[in-house]
């Protein structure tokens, strides 16, 4: 029986539930603890740094930017972000100095005895201030990136109705349960990095820029990432590297929760403007969309987040003319970055709220509006590519609509109860030419005992990579999963299969592994039983043939992309979601309870149904948090909600029973990691709008917001 499609129990479940799996902070450690000295102002020049003479700093290791041998730039898409500030600071929390000491207590004490004086500059704390350009933070317009795309012919507007609305979405904190943690291991002048991360090769390349040398980077068991451990660990790896190099000892740096919430990257807040033209049946004729993201103080991954927002901004609806103007601005707040969904949850909130608003404007059902605008064989996307998924999308829409009993519930109009839908897609893998630029590779090593070893850079961070990828390889080879070995990656020992992000692991890396496994199988020739397999392995290896089987990413013909004009089909494939939320509002305290939730998905072939359900359940929980609970508060550029007691995430009792289904088609597997985060907030916003007959256009919808809207 095929292993792909079975709910194989996670290979790491036992060591995780008995407490024996060692995360970074649990690893054997004998050395110094590190700490970061950070800016206390949002924008300014550093005038002086003084170490209190009455405090003994002699046994501390102190590092500043002058200790960097290579470039003081954390190069991702660009090189604007220094590892350590030199003369200027751009956000509260920007790293300036590093300290290390054997005692964590002394380290805390020492922080009180360092005085940094600044020449304050006007901080730019809001998107509007940034757009006003009175203070320039980046280039000559404060814009990190702009994208403009237009497709189709403008319609004759005279007989059309129009609707113009603003929507907004806030910061969101990833809140992986294990905080950012990194260790530098020192041995004979060389440093090896071990820690919590999503992308070991990103860390390796950041350290290469810092040192001019290839440093070995090893992933430790990682307690969640959700995007928050995509690019950020490069910084903290650099910090332990610099301290360890200077101290000639091991150094460990583990953020406490408040430090992690305050200074690491978050989801980009967005301001969205949707203007639509449609006829009296609700058929869309034109969409004019403006997207503004707050990028924070440095570029980091913002341009790619913006690109993904543009690609998802119009959903998959059929519309003759679509124009998108998108921009990401610089502010003096901590840099924003990757978070599950990566720009899509923001705009899906926009387009899906807007579809409901069109229905409200016409006095028809939101289902009718969606149905009229479902794509067909000639429909093209926001970037002018054919929407090949039109049949799948229609099937998913109809299945969910029926299963949830949407029409009857929507018509019922019960006071303080509402129902709402979100219909959406998510592109798997890197956008545009991204996958081609990554040029991912995989290795499969055949051992003489018949074991097959997966050697790639993709990581387990909770989503199930360590189980799903061996399932795919074992499936091709018709072997039990126990014959497949796969360890957490070390950059010195594995092929660079690209970062563990963008819902690409099963879809892209899994496909490459299938290819490599097929090559292996072909090399071995026919075998029936396991014993015959072992004979075939022995015979093959005895012949002295290559024991490593490789595969590398090659762009499929279907992906054609023109980055300059933002035109073409930007993805290898799309996964689809149709989510329905039912909500109840308490008329006394205005708390909102999601009473029922349908999460129906089409992700092609499901590799491991139990783990796939787990991804959806977790993603929906984060989406419900995004809609109703999670609120980051800044005051004068300082984060005011830096603790878990201030930043509420959903608890078990806050969540409804989820109805989850996969259409499970025989199409190749598509991405699933991000999809379930995209839809819940829009479905909930729509359900609340239905419940209270007043529009909820801005997240987070806290009880205070509901109360105000009901006044």
């Amino acid at each position, binding site marked *: 029986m095929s292993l792909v499609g079975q*709910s194989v*129990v*996670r290979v*790491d*479940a*036992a*060591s*995780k*539930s*008995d*407490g*024996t*799996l*060692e*995360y970074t*902070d*649990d690893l054997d450690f004998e050395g110094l603890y590190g700490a970061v000295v950070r800016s206390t102002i949002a924008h300014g020049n550093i005038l002086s740094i003084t170490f209190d003479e009455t405090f003994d700093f002699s046994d501390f290791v102190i590092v500043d930017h002058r200790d960097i041998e290579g470039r003081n730039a954390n190069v991702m898409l660009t090189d604007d972000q220094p590892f350590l500030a030199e003369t200027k600071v751009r956000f509260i929390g920007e790293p300036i100095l590093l300290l290390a000491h054997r005692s964590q*207590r002394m380290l805390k004490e020492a922080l009180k005895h360092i005085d940094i004086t600044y020449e304050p500059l006007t901080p730019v704390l809001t998107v509007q201030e940034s757009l006003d350009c009175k203070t320039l933070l980046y280039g000559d317009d404060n814009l990190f990136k702009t994208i403009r795309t237009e497709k189709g012919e403008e319609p004759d507007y005279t007989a059309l109705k129009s609707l113009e609305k603003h929507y907004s979405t806030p910061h969101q904190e*990833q*809140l*992986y*349960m*294990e*905080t950012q943690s990194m260790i530098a291991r020192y041995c004979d002048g060389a440093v090896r990095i071990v820690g919590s991360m999503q992308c070991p090769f990103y860390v390796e390349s950041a350290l290469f820029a810092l040192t001019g040398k290839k440093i070995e980077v090893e992933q430790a*068991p*990682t*307690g*969640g990432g*959700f995007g928050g451990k995509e690019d950020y660990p490069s910084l903290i790896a650099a910090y332990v590297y610099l301290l360890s190099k200077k101290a000639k000892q091991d150094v460990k740096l*583990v953020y*406490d*929760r408040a430090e992690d919430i305050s200074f690491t990257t978050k989801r980009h807040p967005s301001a969205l403007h949707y203007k639509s033209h449609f006829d009296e049946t609700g058929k869309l004729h034109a969409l004019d969309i403006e997207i503004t993201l707050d990028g924070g103080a440095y570029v980091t991954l913002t341009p790619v987040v913006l690109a993904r927002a543009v690609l998802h901004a119009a959903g998959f609806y059929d519309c003759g003319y679509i124009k998108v103007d998108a921009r990401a601005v610089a502010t003096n707040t901590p840099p924003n970055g990757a978070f599950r969904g990566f720009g899509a949850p923001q705009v899906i909130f926009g387009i899906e709220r807007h579809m409901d608003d069109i229905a409200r404007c016409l006095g028809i059902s939101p289902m009718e509006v969606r149905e009229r605008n479902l794509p067909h064989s000639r429909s093209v996307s926001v970037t002018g590519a054919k929407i090949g998924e039109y049949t799948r999308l229609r099937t998913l829409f109809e299945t969910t609509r029926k299963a949830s009993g949407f029409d009857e519930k929507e018509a019922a109009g019960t006071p303080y109860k509402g129902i709402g839908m979100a219909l959406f897609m998510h592109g798997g893998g890197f956008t545009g030419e991204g996958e081609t630029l990554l040029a991912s590779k995989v290795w499969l090593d055949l051992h003489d005992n018949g074991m097959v070893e997966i050697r790639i850079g993709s990581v387990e*961070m*909770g*989503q*199930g990579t360590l189980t799903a990828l061996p399932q795919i390889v074992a499936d091709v080879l018709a072997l039990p999963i126990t014959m497949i070995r796969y360890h957490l990656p070390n950059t010195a020992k594995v092929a660079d299969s690209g970062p563990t992000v963008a819902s690409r692991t099963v879809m892209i890396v899994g496909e490459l592994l299938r290819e490599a496994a097929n090559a292996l199988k072909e090399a071995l020739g026919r075998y029936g039983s396991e014993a015959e397999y072992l004979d075939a392995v022995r015979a093959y290896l005895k012949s002295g043939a290559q024991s490593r089987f490789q595969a590398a990413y090659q762009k499929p013909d279907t992906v054609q992309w023109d980055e300059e004009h933002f035109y073409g089909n930007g993805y290898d494939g799309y996964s689809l979601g149709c989510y329905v939320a039912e909500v109840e509002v308490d008329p006394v305290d205005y708390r909102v309870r999601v009473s029922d939730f349908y999460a129906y998905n089409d992700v092609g072939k499901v590799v491991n149904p*139990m*783990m796939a*359900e*787990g991804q*959806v*359940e*977790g*993603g*929906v*929980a*984060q989406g419900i948090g995004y809609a109703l609970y999670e609120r980051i508060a800044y005051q004068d550029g300082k984060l005011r909600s830096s*603790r*878990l*007691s201030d930043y509420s*995430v959903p*608890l*078990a*009792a806050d*969540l409804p*029973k*989820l109805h989850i289904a996969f259409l499970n088609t025989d199409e190749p597997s598509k991405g699933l990691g991000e999809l379930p985060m995209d839809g819940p907030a829009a479905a909930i916003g729509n359900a609340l709008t239905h419940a209270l007959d007043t529009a909820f256009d801005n997240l987070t919808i806290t009880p205070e917001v509901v109360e105000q809207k009901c006044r």
Partner: protein
Amino acid sequence: MQIRCTINSRPYRFECEPEERLLDVVRRLGMLSVKKGCGEGECGTCSLFFNGKLVNSCLLLAPQMQGAEIVTLEGLQKETETIRENFAKEGAVQCGFCTPGFVMRAYDYIIHEGSKDEKRVKEALDGNICRCTGYQKIVEAIVKSMS
């Protein structure tokens, strides 16, 4: 200051600073199932039994350990075997960082209450945060452990 207490039925005698947290002390002594998640009693990753009561060890100070009986997941391996198996089988484990805390909470719930009502189970989990699973499979694993 010097502390004498028992941890997982073994007597311990050690020196510690008066302001140290129980969490840090038990981790230093090697009980690494006790994780540091938030440090303010919100997430439950550092749960352990303190004189028979399930507590967040980040909220207690080392001097409170004097004479106490402390039990961590390391000392409850046999008792939690069924729960842990069900966590694995039901898909209640993802990144795993919160899992030891949830296993402790599940064990405490089962020995003290044991109602299979999902609502009751969910309410019992209000001191534990999981950011990966959405809790549904954790609840199912706990209910299954009571059958």
